[in-house]
């Protein structure tokens, strides 16, 4: 580094690279482009919590249905493998997943090994610059298949958006212990366009419960 600029009271040391490839040699790199039937999504959230706390929520596989959309069951099947069940409307999709890397408080990577869905992903947990909570970055890849199609046709939600919403739910869980929701709530007659609008607004996807317990006192 040159010494043209000496006064940088709060500057971090120049990060060379990080997981999920947001930075390469100190330079921003855009997410991978979709091609050959592969969809990519990369999304990140700054969370008022320690990276370890966010990791712990994510790594608690059996509890994932309480904060990831439409996932109804995650069952451990081995030391590194698990079985996933997703229900959209009356359609059920199942697959097996294997953890490829597990660095507590830092990173989890996985891929699907069998079943109705082909996906792979990585989630990075790091301290945000100057100690402001955690940065959680998810990089996920899907092949167009039953999973992606079900999301798009049944729920009217792009599978990429589902990844973004799930990270939003994780943030809400880590920061507040609950996920914001409005259904069911009082309303007058919705009329005929109501249902259509509901799916347009993304309100057809049930918000995960955020908890297994009763909410009233």
């Amino acid at each position, binding site marked *: 580094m040159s010494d043209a600029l000496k006064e940088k009271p709060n500057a971090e040391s120049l990060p060379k690279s990080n997981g999920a490839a947001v930075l390469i040699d100190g330079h921003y790199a855009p997410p991978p482009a979709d091609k050959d039937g592969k969809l990519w999504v990369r999304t990140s959230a700054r969370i008022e919590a320690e990276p370890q706390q966010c990791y712990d929520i994510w790594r608690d596989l059996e509890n994932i249905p309480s904060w990831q959309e439409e996932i109804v069951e995650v069952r451990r099947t081995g030391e590194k493998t698990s079985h996933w069940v997703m229900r959209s409307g009356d359609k059920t999709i199942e697959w097996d997943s294997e953890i490829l890397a597990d660095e507590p408080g830092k990173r989890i990577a996985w891929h699907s090994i069998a079943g109705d869905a082909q996906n792979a992903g990585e989630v990075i947990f790091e301290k945000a610059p100057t100690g402001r909570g955690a940065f959680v970055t998810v990089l996920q890849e899907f092949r167009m298949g039953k999973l992606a199609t079900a999301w798009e046709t049944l729920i009217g939600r792009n599978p990429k958006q589902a990844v973004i919403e799930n990270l939003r739910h994780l943030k809400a869980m880590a*920061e507040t212990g609950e996920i914001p*929701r409005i259904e069911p709530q009082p*309303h*007058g007659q919705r009329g005929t366009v109501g249902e259509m609008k509901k799916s347009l607004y*993304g309100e057809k996807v049930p918000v995960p419960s955020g908890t297994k317990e009763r909410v*009233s*006192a």
Partner: protein
Amino acid sequence: MKAVCWMGKSKVETLTVADPQILNPHDAIIKITRTAICGSDLHLYDGFIPTMEAGDVLGHEFMGIVEETGKAVTNLKRGDRVVVPFTIACGSCAFCKKQLWSACDNTNPNAHLMEAAYGYSGSGLFGYSHMMGGYAGGQAQYARVPFANVGPLKIESDLPDEKVLFLSDIFPTGYMAAENAQIEPGDTVAVWGCGPVGQFAIASAFMLGAGRVIAIDRLPERLQMARSIGAITVDYSEEDVDVLTALKDLTGGMGPDSCIDAVGLEAHSSDLKGLYDSVKVALLLETDRPIVLRQAIQAVRKGGTLSIPGVYGGLLDKVPFGAAFGKGITMKMGQTNMHKYMKPLLNRIQQGQIDPTYIISHRITLDEAPDMYKIWRDKKENVTKIVIDPWATKQAA
């Protein structure tokens, strides 16, 4: 329960709907004792705010008695009397920690809609479109209030409901507008709009040290109200009145130190510029009518401050940004960071520094609300503020 529902543009009905229920651990159910209709509700009534859906329960200014609490609610119990802020905030995200409560990260279940329109989502609001959270509102007999540990302000004194009701929105909104105006002792402040928000902006400007406040509107009863609390008034609709000239005349040619736009996107105008905006809005080439915003940018002095509590929703045309740059002005705006102001303003009411009931003109039942929306929009019957008692029944004539 009974609730006032939005059923389409210019169509509001009082209907019987289901009671709300606790959905999350930090929720409370409030039995509403007083609620109000706001200038912001007109933007919904007139169809300016997208993502309303037929059947949505309206209302964001309400107070009442705690009926039931979720299991994580620790500082409220059944029977407590509370005023509820219209912005919903979690209290623990980075924005809440900075006191930017209306920018809360964790209270809009439809954040993706607002992200698509604005880049990022603000907090959820009661009764104010699906883009802003889709929460059922408070022109009803009961409401579900999320994050009840953080929002509702407990009223422990025996002040009547009406004296504290406006802590739910318009008093803090007027106050934040005056704070955003960066008033220095003796400054001259111009306020467009003498509705409830304008009234409290005028009162707050004086509290914060303004020497002179100039209030602009066309409705005589509102101008009178502004004079009653010490403002000089200008009727922009009077023949031969030009607002910019009037403001120069009243400031020795220098312009007001601060300008407050308490009108927002439905500003009224009868001249050609207004027609231009109405036609563009009708053709969907523009969503808002920024008539006051344009005037305020022109009127404010060099290096002055423009504070904008009036709501804007979408795309504005012909905003004189060159004038803003050329004079080096500061602009501050946004939904009110309610939670920051409620307690200090309650103290001012308790100490008798202000009695907010002076703006009330109508007290009605829920069943009368649909008709009142029309009167409110047309500013008939000298209406200045409508308060609803959701449990009152119409007196037999």
